[in-house]
């Protein structure tokens, strides 16, 4: 495996770790952080591919993913704050029931 492909392997590993974290944790902010980790793994794969193919389109894609992740983080944390105000807890199991 040449050195560039090992970056792809690292990206897959980080994606899987993020996915496992998403399934195992209940704290909403830690879930958000696992999603960010998966996005970063995809970014790493994009940069590795851009190096393999020799043009910079992959890096521009990473730029756009970063922009979207920034906007998503702002809104996601605002949602978490709103849920915290009504439920007084940010564990997902405490907000699992609809109001009767």
């Amino acid at each position, binding site marked *: *495996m*040449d*050195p*560039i*492909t*090992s*970056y*792809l*392997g*690292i*990206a*897959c*590993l980080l*994606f*899987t*770790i*993020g*996915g*496992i*974290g998403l399934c*195992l944790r*209940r*704290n909403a*902010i*830690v879930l958000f*952080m*696992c999603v*960010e*980790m998966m996005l970063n793994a995809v970014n*790493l794969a994009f*940069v*590795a591919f*851009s*190096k393999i*193919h*020799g*043009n*910079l*389109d992959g*890096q*521009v894609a990473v*730029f*756009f993913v*970063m*922009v*979207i*992740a*920034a*906007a*998503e*983080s*702002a*809104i996601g*944390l*605002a*949602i978490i*704050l709103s849920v915290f*105000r009504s439920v007084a807890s*940010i*564990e997902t199991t405490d907000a699992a029931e609809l109001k009767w």
Partner: protein
Amino acid sequence: MSFMEFVIAAIGIASAIGVVGFRNPLSSAFSLILHLLSIAGLYALLGAHFLAVSQVVVYAGAIMVLVLFVLMLLNLKSESGRRIGIVRSALTVGVGLVIFLTVSGPMLAQFTDISQATLEQNIKASEGGVKAIGELLYGKYMVQFELSSLVLLVGVVGAVMLAKRKNVQLTPREGGMGGAK
């Protein structure tokens, strides 16, 4: 892989496991900061210098500060009782392993249609200098660039509208920290 790549990748993977593993959400957050900085290091080693610096500015410098702010303002205790059982954890890790093998199989196959010489040439050609990325960003991807500024605007407006307290009168004394207890 050279020594630097190995060390930074190891730090990245270790801090990723730390994000998932720590029980205290604040320790998870600091572990994620270390993870983001190591990913920035990997970008720099891959030759994407502008991306490495903007990863530090955007992700590690702004998004994580926001997360830390929310964590500190909410002032949480660690995840309370009702630990996830060992069976469920093992099942999740097993499914994760299957996903890893599925995703990495096609990705790690040798790229047989690109010869070694072309690979070397491509590696040199894709040095992520600021000028080269700027030419692409404002040339080929101009529409996407403008749309992403719209997305950021929607993000800002949405965040303010969602997090605002309803029917609150801010007295002049409360100033900038009004509402936080």
